C-alpha cells in the first residue's frame, strides 16, 4: 500500500519556489522534483507488525491537514567555533556547492521512503557542518524553533580525516498554531577516516506536533559516530538513529532516552550495520512511560558476511509508571558472520517495590521517592553523554516532567 497523496498545493511549483528562495543549483532542484514525483510510488517507513497489530499507524497521519511548506517559519541558532564551518543551508548552497553536491544524499537516499522523499522535496531550512582535517571542535549548537504548521529541516555533517566534533541539535516549537503540526528532520553524517563525531539531539516539540526523524551516519576506517537521541516532546514521533560501520575498526555508541506522558506515542529505533571487519557497536536506550503514553522500540544489530571480529551489544530498559501505558519492544540480531560476539537484552517493568520501600522508610514521601527513582533510572544514559549542556538539559527536562 502506498501512502496517501499529500495536499494538491504541494506541486512542482511549490518545490520550485522553495528551491528558488534558497538560490539552489539545478541539480538540487532536480533532486527535489524527482523526490516529489516519486511520492506516489513510495511506501511509508516500515513499522513493526505482529498478528493483528501495527505497532505504529502512520497511515492515520493527515498530511493535508498539517503540511504547509510555503509558510514555513522558524527561529534558528547555528553556532560553532571558528575552525569549523557551520553554515545555514542557503549559505552552504552559495559557498560550498561542491561539498553539497558530493555529500547530499550520500548517506540517506533522498527517496528512501515516502516521508524522506517528502522532506527532500520540501525542506526549507537546514545546516551544513564541515570539520576540516585534524581539527578538534566542541560545542557546535543548532537550535530550531518551529513557528509554522509544518517545518522540514535538513542537517549534513562532514568530518575530514582525524578531526573531531561534538554537535548538539535541538528542536522545539514556538508560537502556537491552531491544530496539529508536522516536523520532519533528516540528518546525514559522513565521518571521515579516524574522525570522531558525537551528535546529540534533544526533541522537545509541543504535543500537537507529529515528528519524523531519520538520522544516519556512515563511519569510514577507524571513525567513531556516537549518537545521543533524547525524545520528550511531540504527539507522535517516528525516529530512527542508524549507523553504517563501513570502515575497518569503526565504532558507534547510540544512547537513547525518552519520557512519554499523556497520550504521546514514541516509535524509536536504533540500528547498526556491521559491514566490515573489527567494528564495534553499543546501543543503549532507556525510556519511561507515564499516563497513556506508548513506546515502540526496535533495535537492529545486523552483522554482514564480511564483518569479521565484530562486537555488538544492545540494551533497552523501559520503566512503566502507569497501568494505562504500553511498551512494545523488538531487539533484533541478524548475524551472518560467526566471528562475532553479540548480545542484546531488554526489560520492561515498574518501579521496584523494595527500592520504593527503602526510600519511603527514609522518610521520603511517595512522590518524591518515585521521582528520585525515575531520575536515577536515567543516570546510566546520562553518564554516556559527552556534551555537558545536553546532559544537563535532558536531566532538567526529566525533572520538569516529573513535577
Amino acid at each position, binding site marked *: 500500500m502506498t501512502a496517501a497523496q499529500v495536499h494538491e498545493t504541494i506541486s512542482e511549483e511549490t518545490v520550485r519556489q522553495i528551491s528558488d528562495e534558497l538560490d539552489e543549483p539545478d541539480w538540487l532542484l532536480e533532486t527535489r522534483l524527482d523526490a516529489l514525483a516519486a511520492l506516489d510510488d513510495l511506501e511509508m517507513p516500515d513499522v513493526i507488525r505482529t498478528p493483528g497489530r501495527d505497532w505504529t499507524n502512520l497511515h492515520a497521519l493527515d498530511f493535508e491537514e498539517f503540511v504547509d511548506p510555503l509558510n514555513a517559519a522558524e527561529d534558528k541558532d547555528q553556532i560553532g567555533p571558528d575552525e569549523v564551518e557551520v553554515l545555514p543551508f542557503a549559505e552552504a548552497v552559495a559557498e560550498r556547492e561542491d561539498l553539497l553536491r558530493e555529500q547530499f544524499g550520500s548517506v540517506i537516499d533522498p527517496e528512501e521512503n515516502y516521508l524522506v522523499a517528502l522532506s527532500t522535496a520540501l525542506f526549507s531550512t537546514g545546516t551544513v557542518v564541515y570539520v576540516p582535517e585534524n581539527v578538534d571542535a566542541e560545542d557546535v549548537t543548532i537550535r530550531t524553533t518551529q513557528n509554522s504548521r509544518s517545518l522540514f529541516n535538513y542537517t549534513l555533517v562532514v568530518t575530514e580525516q582525524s578531526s573531531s566534533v561534538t554537535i548538539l541539535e535541538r528542536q522545539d516549537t514556538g508560537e502556537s498554531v491552531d491544530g496539529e503540526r508536522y516536523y520532519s528532520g533528516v540528518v546525514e553524517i559522513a565521518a571521515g577516516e579516524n574522525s570522531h563525531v558525537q551528535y546529540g539531539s534533544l526533541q522537545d516539540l509541543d504535543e500537537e506536533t507529529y515528528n519524523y526523524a531519520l538520522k544516519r551516519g556512515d563511519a569510514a576506517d577507524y571513525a567513531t559516530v556516537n549518537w545521543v537521541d533524547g525524545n520528550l516532546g511531540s504527539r507522535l514521533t517516528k525516529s530512527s538513529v542508524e549507523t553504517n560501520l563501513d570502515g575497518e575498526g569503526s565504532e558507534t555508541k547510540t544512547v537513547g532516552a525518552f519520557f512519554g506522558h499523556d497520550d504521546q506515542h514514541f516509535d524509536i529505533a536504533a540500528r547498526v550495520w556491521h559491514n566490515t571487519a573489527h567494528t564495534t557497536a553499543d546501543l543503549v536506550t532507556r525510556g519511561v512511560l507515564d499516563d497513556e503514553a506508548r513506546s515502540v522500540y526496535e533495535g537492529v544489530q545486523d552483522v554482514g558476511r564480511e564483518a569479521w571480529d565484530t562486537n555488538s551489544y544492545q540494551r533497552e530498559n523501559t520503566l512503566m509508571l502507569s497501568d*494505562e501505558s504500553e511498551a512494545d519492544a523488538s531487539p533484533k540480531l541478524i548475524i551472518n558472520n560467526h566471528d562475532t560476539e553479540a548480545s542484546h537484552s531488554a526489560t520492561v517493568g515498574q518501579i521496584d517495590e523494595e527500592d520504593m520501600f527503602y526510600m519511603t522508610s527514609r522518610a521520603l514521601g511517595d512522590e518524591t521517592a518515585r521521582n528520585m527513582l525515575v531520575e536515577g533510572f536515567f543516570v546510566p544514559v546520562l553518564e554516556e553523554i559527552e556534551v555537558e549542556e545536553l546532559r544537563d538539559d535532558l536531566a532538567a527536562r526529566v525533572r520538569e516532567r516529573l513535577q
Partner: protein
Amino acid sequence: MSSEQDQLKQTNTEERFEFKKEERSAVRSDKGLTEEVVRLISDDKDEPDWMLDRRLRALEHWQEMPMPTDWPGQPDLTELNVEEIVPYIRPDVDKRSGADSWEDLPDEIQDTFEKLGIPDAEREALSGVGAQYESEVVYQNMQERWEEKGVVFMNMDKAVQEHPDLVKEHFMTSCVPPSDNKFAALHGAVWSGGSFVYVPEDVTVNMPVQAYFRMNSEGMGQFEHTLIIAEPGSEVHYIEGCSAPKYGTHNLHSGGVEVFVGEDAHVQYSTVQNWSKNTFNLNTKRAIVEKGGRMEWISGSMGSKATMLYPCSILKGREASANNITIAFAGEGQNIDTGAKVYHNAPNTKSTIESKSISKDGGRTNYRGLVHISEGAENSSTSVECDALMFDNESTSDTMPYMEIDESKVDVAHEATVGKIGDEDVFYLQSRGLDDDDAKQMIVSGFIEPITEELPIEYAVELNRLIELEMEGSLG
C-alpha cells in the same frame, strides 16, 4: 543401556530414517487443494456433515488468505507449490483407524516402525502409542489401566465418530480457528489422522503417550490434527516424533495441535522433529491454559528444509503458566524459523522461553517469538533467553523477539547472545585427546544440555544422537 537405546545409537541413518518403502495405497487423492479433494477425504472417512462443512469453510479461508511473505527474514516459501502436493494417501491396511497389534500391519509398515524403534519404546516407557503412516493412523494402543480410568487416546478420525460433542466443541474453534493463518486454513481443509487425548479430572498419566508420524511417499502432504483435553487437576505428557525419507521434490507437513489445559492441570508436549530436508514444515500449535494450569512445550527441530513453528500458550486463567524449550539445528540448505508465543491474559501468570539454536554449513536459524501482556494481567512475569551458536561464516543466526507490554505491574526480561564455537574450547578438548569433530560435538552437547536435561532420558538420547548425526553431515 536398554535395547531401545542401542537402537537409537544406530549410526546407519539410511537404516534409521531414510529408507523408502514402495507406496501401496488404498486411496490416493489428486494433487492440489480443490473442493473435490476435500470432499473425497471427508467421504473416504465417512464424516458427519458438520465436519465436511468445517473443511469447506477452511478451504475458503485458504483461498482468500495471502501466503505469508512479509515477515522479516522468513524462510522462502516460493518453492512450495501446494498445487503439486498430494494431500491424502490412505495406506492399504485391513483395519481402519488403527490396529492394536503391530502384527496386523502389512510387513513394510511394521518394518518401518520397528526401524524407528517405536514398538520397543512402547514396551519400555510409554502409556500408549499411535503411529501414523501417510495420512492414516495405522496403529493405536494404550495400556488398559488408563482406559479403565477413563483416559482416551485414539486416532482423531475415530474421535470425530465416537466423541462428536467434545470434538465439535474443541476442534478448530476457540484455539486454532482456520482463519488464524494460511497454513491453519490449509490444515483445516485437508487434515487427516493425528491424536485425540482426553484425560479426566484428577487423573495423572504417569508415563508419556507417544505418536509417531511417518511420511513415506514422494510429494505428499501430511496434515495430522492433535487435540488434547486435560480436565482440571489432570496431568499428561504427549510426545510426537516424525520423519520421512528424502526425495527430490517437496513434501509438506502442516500439523495442527490444540491443547486445552484445565484448572490446575499440567500438559507437557514434546516434539522431536526430523523431517527429511525436502520437507516444508509449517505448523500451528496452541494451548489455552486455565487458572493454575501449566503448559510445557518442548521442541527439537533438526530436520526439514524450512520450518515455521511458534508453539503458543494463551494464559487465560490466574496463575496459569507456560514454559517453552526450543532447540533448532540448521545444517546445509535448512532454514529453521522457530520460537514461541505467549499471551498473558490474566493476573499472576508466568512464562519462560529458552531457545538454543545452532547453525552450520550455510544453515539458517531464526528465533522469532512474541510475548504479549494484556492490560490487567498484573503481577505477570516473563523471561526469554535465546542463545545461538554459529559454526562457520556461511551460516546465519537471527533473533527476532517481539514484546507487547500493556500492563505496568510486570516483570519482563529478554536476553540473547550469539557467538561462534570457541577456538579455545576446541583446542582445549583436542589437547585432551579428542579429534576436532568430537570436540565440537561435545561443545554442542554442552550448549544444549540445559534443555536436554528437561527431557525424558529416551528423548534426550535421541536428540543428542540426531545432533551427532547432523554434525557428521550424515542426515539426508
